[in-house]
């Protein structure tokens, strides 16, 4: 039913959904004052971009890009998968460094709230 009602929207619903999730993540990164929340937002943002890539690789009726014995089988596009494999690792690396920083900040200031940090810095 939705197919007929909103054809343009429906054709690309995956991308639109990815965009919505991206925006949620981006909003968390900018607006949330808690440093861990910022990193969570970063993770959501990045994963949404990965979703965007993976969506683009899908093909109607395609199978996973592992060679099968059936010569007629259609494979989905493997290249975005590779890019995203790399990007996932990049994401986890960034998260790890970010978390390490958060720990050090907590040790140094006793808080991980941005506004409290700013207040403490202003006091010094």
């Amino acid at each position: 039913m939705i197919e007929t009602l909103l054809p343009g929207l429906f054709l690309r619903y995956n991308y639109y959904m990815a965009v919505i999730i991206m925006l949620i993540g981006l909003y968390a990164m900018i607006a949330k004052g808690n440093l861990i929340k910022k990193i969570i937002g970063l993770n959501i943002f990045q994963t949404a971009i990965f979703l965007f890539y993976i969506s683009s690789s899908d093909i109607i009726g395609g199978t996973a890009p592992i060679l099968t014995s059936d010569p007629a089988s259609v494979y989905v596009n493997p290249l975005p998968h590779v890019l995203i494999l790399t990007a996932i690792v990049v994401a986890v690396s960034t998260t790890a460094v970010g978390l390490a920083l958060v720990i050090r900040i907590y040790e140094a200031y006793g808080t991980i709230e941005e506004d409290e940090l700013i207040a403490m810095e202003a006091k010094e």
Partner: protein
Amino acid sequence: MIWEFNFALFLFLVICAIAAISVRNLLSAVVILGVYSLIMAVLWAEMQAVDVSFTEAAVGAGITTILFVAALSRTTRRSKD
């Protein structure tokens, strides 16, 4: 590609994402983030991206969550927003 199934997963994702950034207890937020990653992995598996799905399940839902929890254990669970 079953669009109803995809759509349901997408909805879950959006809900998880919103929940993860709005829950005040950081541990809950992190766990919800793990769930989010897992749903993402399922979605990708459904999109035939098995390798990526595998990796996301292991890295996104696994290692990342563990690192978050470990970091929380050394900082605080509470968040002001």
